[in-house]
């Protein structure tokens, strides 16, 4: 019956199916699936590789950036340091120069004072001498002029004597 033939496998078809399916399975396995699967695998590997490399490059780049940043920071720090040192040196020099100038000034001033004092003393001495000489000269003149008169001499002596007495007492 027809229904029976539907669920009853026919020998011929089993025969051809087994033969041809296995043949095709063999052909495809050897000449199609192998290169296809290999190709897929290779492509996936190359893509994964490329991605890895990109990731690596990115990481390297980041590292480099960090390094650059570090270098910049170091340079900046160094500059700060240098500037600070320079400022310190300048300050120190200025301070030193100031001190030196002051010392020098002081010394100069002291010397000037000394000089002035010396000059003053010298001047005083000279003036004393001049006064003495002048006094002598005046005295001489006066003496020459006044001592011609005996009375006047007597008066003078008296006056001097009186003054001297006054000074004594």
């Amino acid at each position, binding site marked *: 019956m027809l229904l029976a033939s539907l669920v009853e496998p026919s020998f011929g078809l089993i025969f051809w199916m087994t033969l041809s399916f296995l043949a095709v399975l063999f052909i495809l396995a050897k000449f199609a699936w192998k290169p296809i*699967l290999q190709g897929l695998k290779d492509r996936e590997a190359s893509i994964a590789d490329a991605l890895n490399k990109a990731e690596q490059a990115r990481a390297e780049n980041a590292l480099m950036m960090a390094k650059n940043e570090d270098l910049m920071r170091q340079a900046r720090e160094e500059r700060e340091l240098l500037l600070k040192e320079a400022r310190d040196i300048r300050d120190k020099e200025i301070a030193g120069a100031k001190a030196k100038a002051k010392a020098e000034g002081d010394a100069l001033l002291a010397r000037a004072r000394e000089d002035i004092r010396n000059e003053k003393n010298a001047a005083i001495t000279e003036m004393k001498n001049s006064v003495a000489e002048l006094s002598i000269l005046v005295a001489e003149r006066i003496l020459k002029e006044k001592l011609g008169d005996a009375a006047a001499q007597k008066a003078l002596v008296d006056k001097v004597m009186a003054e001297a007495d006054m000074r004594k007492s």
Partner: protein
Amino acid sequence: MKILQQGDPPLAYEFYLRGRKQGYNPYVMSIQNLLRTASLLIGSLFLGATNAQHDGHDHGTAEATAHTTEAHATTAHAEEGHVKERFNAGKLIMDHIGDEHGWHLFGHTTLPLPVILYDTQRGLQVFSSSRFDHGHASYNGYALVDHEVVAVADAKANGHAPFTVDEVATKAIWDISITKNVLSLFISLTVLVIIFLTVAKAYTRRAGQAPAGLQNLVEPIILFVRDDVAKSAIGEKKYMKYMPYLLTAFFFIFLNNLMGLVPFFPGGANLTGNIAVTLVMALITFIIVTVNGNKHYWGHIFAMPGVPGWVLAILTPVEILGMFLKPFVLMIRLFANITAGHIIALSFFSLIFVFGETSTGAGLGVGVFSLAFTIFMTMLELLVAFIQAYVFTFLSAMYIGSAVEEPHHH
């Protein structure tokens, strides 16, 4: 029990596997499968009954119905004008989903195919199927009865129907004719070889580049079979060895399911809905599973670890039965799904002629609905074509996976 001990894979997968072992399909398609199988059974019973009736009443006028098709059913009557013969939907459908010597192309045109017989008494016999004249004539002592080659009593005479079948001589015939299904098998396999050799060439020629053309068409499916079928069911380490079979099986089933939906040559043969084809495929899966089964697999069949002796007495026969049941279910599922699809689509068409017999208007009226339903069914079948190819491949992979699985713990 065995399954729960396996541990690693997710729970849903466990239940799936366990369900599969018991022949129950908790898969999404289970409802559809159930409906299909039910409709197939009901349909078959009904058709079987009408056939029996038919066989009884017109054995003598077999010539009129031997090659009935929907096109013929009406024209034949008009031409021959003898006793009004009723349109027989059952016979029409069975003729379409079954196999035949010679491929009916259209109208009265049939592509004759070689009949190859190995007769243990008379040796190899090769001749054209046109010699049988659609079962009307015998040739060289052979004739066609219900699409099967039989030996007829008067061996030398090229007689006409009805034939006197020589039962003993018929038993000596091994029919390896190139039938409609065999030719369809050859065509589909040739197409597969051409497609995949071309694609393989593209992979070697354009190594490392993005896929193009035909490569683009099949690559997603290849990747799907590799990643979602083989890798997930067999495991990362061992899947590669089974890829050629899984891929070939998938594309073979898929292509033939699709070709079965095409109503004219070279499509139209119901190859994946033929039990001989699904039998061979299930058998290959069974052989792969059995040959590659490791100690762990056999251990779980014959002596389930951690199970007391008296339970083993029950469990071992069940497990052994399960070993054979798994490929058997594979065979039935594909066969039943595809055949049921063909039966339903053809039933809708037959409705047109069944109603057309009462009045032309009724036939046309029903025709509109039948057409709409057939379009719907064909859409569904397109989905089923893929799903069944997937299910067959996935279950094969799962059985292989359970056979090569290494014990993780205990």
